[in-house]
């Protein structure tokens, strides 16, 4: 009896682990296969039947790809675009959310409901109109033109406002009694209290900007100004005869986001899942 029960436990454990490993293979398989391809010597890339584990190992694609395409430039562009986008969102969204949560001023409700309404109203021609606006502002072919339309997200403002609302009033009163001005109350007392919400904003926008492809392609004329995702999309058509380079470039482009995800996995998952549930 006891034996049978423990046997069954072991068997179900084995089945569960087998299913987990199989699912993990399906989830990671495409990237692992890409990694494998990028580490092969050319003769083995199109070999049939395919060589699963690259042998001999060849790291040359990863060094060559920096000569084949201006990869450093793309990385620099991506970092610059992502940094600007995240920074602008954190600063401007925090500034916008704070008064909406904690200061009584005329027309506050109007402003708030106007902002919230954009989450419901369909923005059917958003990209088209934004393109026209960027052209009129003479920001076509600039990084600012990519970043500015998403420099404030309604979603972030909403999220930060919720966070500011939950701060107890005592915090504010004690600051006032100490004679702190409005800005000092905001900056020294309030902002540190909403750090988790700011972390969510940073993670979301880091991902969105780092992975963004089509808007940079629309806004940028110079391929030299492309961020990684746009550049890979552009190059995969032109360099398809030499796929290992594209594979190496793609692997390089996903490493930063995967590393950051692995380091901050809790915040990532809670932020992305919690945001929809909330």
């Amino acid at each position, binding site marked *: 009896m006891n034996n049978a029960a423990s046997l069954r436990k072991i068997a179900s454990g084995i089945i569960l682990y087998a299913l987990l490993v199989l699912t993990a293979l399906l989830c990671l398989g495409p990237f692992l296969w890409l990694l494998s391809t990028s580490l092969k010597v050319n003769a083995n890339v199109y070999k049939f039947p395919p060589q699963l584990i690259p042998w001999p190992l060849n790291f040359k694609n990863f060094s060559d790809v920096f000569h084949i395409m201006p990869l450093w430039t793309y990385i620099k562009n991506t970092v610059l675009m992502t940094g600007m986008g995240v920074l602008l969102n954190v600063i401007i969204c925090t500034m916008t959310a704070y008064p909406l949560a904690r200061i009584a001023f005329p027309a506050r409700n109007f402003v708030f409901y106007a902002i919230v309404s954009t989450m419901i109203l369909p923005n059917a021609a958003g990209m088209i109109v934004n393109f026209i606006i960027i052209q009129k502002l003479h920001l076509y072919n600039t990084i600012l033109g990519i970043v500015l339309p998403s420099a404030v997200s309604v979603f972030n403002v909403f999220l930060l406002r919720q966070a500011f609302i939950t701060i107890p009033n005592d915090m504010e009163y004690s600051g006032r009694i100490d004679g702190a001005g409005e800005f000092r109350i905001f900056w020294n007392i309030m902002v540190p209290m909403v750090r988790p919400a700011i972390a969510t904003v940073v993670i979301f926008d880091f991902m969105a900007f780092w992975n963004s492809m089509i808007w940079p392609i629309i806004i940028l004329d110079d391929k030299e100004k492309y961020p990684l995702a746009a550049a890979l999309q552009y190059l995969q058509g032109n360099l398809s005869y030499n796929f290992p380079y594209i594979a190496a470039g793609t692997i390089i482009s996903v490493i930063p986001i995967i590393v950051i995800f692995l380091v901050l*996995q809790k915040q*990532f998952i809670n932020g992305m899942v919690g945001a929809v549930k909330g």
Partner: protein
Amino acid sequence: MAAKWSKQQRSRARFAYLMIAPGVLLLIVFTFYPILYGLPLAFTNYSALDTTKWIGMKNFQRAFNDPDFYVALKNSLIYVIVVPIIQIIAILMAVLVNTKLKFVGLFRVAFFIPVVTSMVAAAIAWKWMYEEQGIINYILRSLGLTHHDIAFMVEPKYALAGVMLVTIWKGLGYYMMIYLAGLQSIPSELQEAARIDGANRLQVIRLITIPLLMPFVLLCSLLSVMGAIRVFDEIFVMHGPKGDPINSTLVASVYTYKVAFQDFDFGYAAAIGLVVALIILVFSLFMFRYTRKGGLTYYE
């Protein structure tokens, strides 16, 4: 409220306006204005070529006589098939990782990796696997499922399904996490009580787990319907801006992109976008109604 504002209140209000000014200004330019201007734009012939004129319903008449537009709508609707598939697999995955096995956290993280990577990277990886001499054909042949190589990227009958698989694959981890949160929100006492009352495992699933998971199913379905109708990146990367081969992957958003940014026919593109937005609106209203009638009543 407007009657008497103390000096301090007035200075606070001034501070508030200063703080919200940059954000509100950017929202006016890049969010409010596009929403408002997108509407009249759909009734003009705004393009790179012509001087802009009000042309009434002409764009809409043109859309309804445009065979490509119908193909795009049809493909977008077909695309919604990914929604139930994602829900079923994601729920099964959530059940699988909702155990207390060792290393299960590691697997959860692994399943989530496709979610955080860019669609460009994912699409490039899949395109490579879909090659005629690629690994998918190799696997299918090794398993004896096919006897000759299939041109997944080139044959129209496989192209759309091929992209849909990428969409499904990339979204699973995300929905799995929502369902996991859902499963963990169900108090275990409920299930235990049912077991004590003599319900078998299947009955517990059917009578407790599924009804309590329903709100999450509806939320996830709504999110993935919107995602499916807006699908763009994976098609653009794998099959280009025209929805090749022979329109087989031409969906609404890709067609809108083509009309706007390849033909520079902005007025017509705005009209198409408006029609699609209306369809999404009808879809979501329908689903909200269904939500009201369905699982959510358990919480009311």
